């Protein structure tokens, strides 16, 4: 009898817990018409934002919201759809909202989050993405990308198509795969790893973060990478070759070209030379980081 009573109490507690959990979240669904090349703006504080591109001229929103999220506000005007997760006043990083948004694939996408992670697939229009501590993962086609985080990690997968890519973070790691066109990347302590196809301009800078760059450059391309204390590893090839200048104050310089020695100046080391016809220009600079320059194979 005691066992039966105990089991009954447990079952009741379980049921109550399940009911309470179900009451903790709510969902939101909405679909609005949009223009194929319109702007879609999404802002969310915590949780997640998943965006995917589709062939329809509509924006579809499905959201799962914590109880302490006030509401999702959707406003639609010609050429612009705005989706905002609204928190109660004075709440900076309160309840989580998990958004799943489908947008016309050629939309210009603007996403802004605080700690929410962002995942984007299949959007071929311009992307302007901001996050504070949330991680951002996206794939890009030939349109421009402007991506900024404070501490969130960044992963971008491209198709090697020319575009203007501006990626900055404070402490997040940056991974760019198969980028193209112009890259401007900047982190302080995060690691910067990038592979580029057909890049015509690269400007990359870190303070203490290491940098690993693998680049196929167009003819006459310019490539500049700078760190203060981070190590710098570059593998590059270019149509028409490139002239290079490498300088460091207290780090070491090595190359894979053979036979060359870094010149030791009054203070620091430098190495210069040319690959192929020397049509492009490469400059690598660091204070105390080590530099390695090799051909891309």
């Amino acid at each position, binding site marked *: 009898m005691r066992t039966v009573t105990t089991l009954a109490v447990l079952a009741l507690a379980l049921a109550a817990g399940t009911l309470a959990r179900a009451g903790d979240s709510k969902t939101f669904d909405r679909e609005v018409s949009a223009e194929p090349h319109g702007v879609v703006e999404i*802002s969310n*504080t915590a949780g997640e934002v998943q965006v995917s591109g589709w062939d329809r001229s509509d924006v579809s929103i499905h959201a799962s919201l914590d109880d302490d999220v006030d509401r999702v506000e959707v406003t639609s005007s010609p050429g612009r759809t705005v989706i*905002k*997760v609204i*928190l109660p006043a004075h709440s*900076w*990083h309160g309840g989580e909202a998990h958004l799943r948004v489908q947008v016309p694939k050629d939309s210009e996408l*603007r996403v*802004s989050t*605080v*700690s929410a992670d962002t995942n984007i697939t299949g959007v071929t229009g311009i992307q302007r993405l*901001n*996050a*504070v*501590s949330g991680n951002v993962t996206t794939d890009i086609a030939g349109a421009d990308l402007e991506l*900024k*985080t*404070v*501490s*969130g990690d960044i992963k971008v997968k491209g198709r090697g198509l020319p575009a203007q890519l501006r990626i*900055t973070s*404070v*402490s*997040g790691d940056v991974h760019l795969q198969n980028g193209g066109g112009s890259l401007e990347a*900047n982190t*302080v*302590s*995060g690691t910067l790893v990038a592979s580029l196809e057909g890049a015509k301009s690269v400007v990359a*800078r870190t*303070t*203490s973060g290491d940098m690993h760059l693998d680049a196929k450059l167009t003819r006459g391309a310019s490539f500049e990478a*700078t760190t*203060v*204390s981070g190590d710098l590893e570059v593998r590059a090839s270019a149509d028409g070759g490139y002239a290079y200048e490498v*300088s*460091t*104050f*207290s780090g070491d310089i090595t190359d894979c070209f053979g036979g060359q020695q870094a010149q030791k100046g*009054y*203070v*620091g080391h430098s190495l210069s030379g040319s690959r192929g016809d020397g049509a492009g220009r490469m400059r690598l*600079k*660091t*204070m*105390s980081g080590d530099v390695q320059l090799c051909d891309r194979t």
Partner: protein
Amino acid sequence: MPRSIDPPRDLWPQIEAQLGAAGAAAPRRRTAPLRWLAAAAMVGALAVGVWIGRDLMPLPGAAAEVAQQPPANPAGANPGGAAVNAAFVSDPRYARQRAELMGSVQAQLNAMPAPARAKVAASLSAIEAAKKDLESALGKDPSNALLQELLINTYQDEMRVLTDVHEAGNAGRGI
């Protein structure tokens, strides 16, 4: 053969005049290096003064600013590193803007989730360490163009970071 030939006229007045002219010009030539030496000494003294000012004498307000900063390096590997600041930069607009940003950054950091706060604090610490290292290296090689460029980059990066963290506080409005 005569032992001597008398000149047709007395040459001594002309020689005396030329010697006098040369003697008058000589002191002027001697003063030029002294002037350069004095100027070089002044520049040297100025450079030493700037270096001392940069490294050893934070301007008024710096202490309060340091107190407002997050624990830049919890491991204590950079003791006093936060004391390095840009107050010595002569442009008052820069100093004012930086001071404003520093004032707001602590509040923004406090509002961040703990892991993010730690990562950003580590980055700010990295910037401070980079500035300090570069200034120290420039102390050894003041005319090194590479170091000068990297120091300027680092100042720009610091402002960017402070601005980004400041704007990160505007939840929902992006950074």
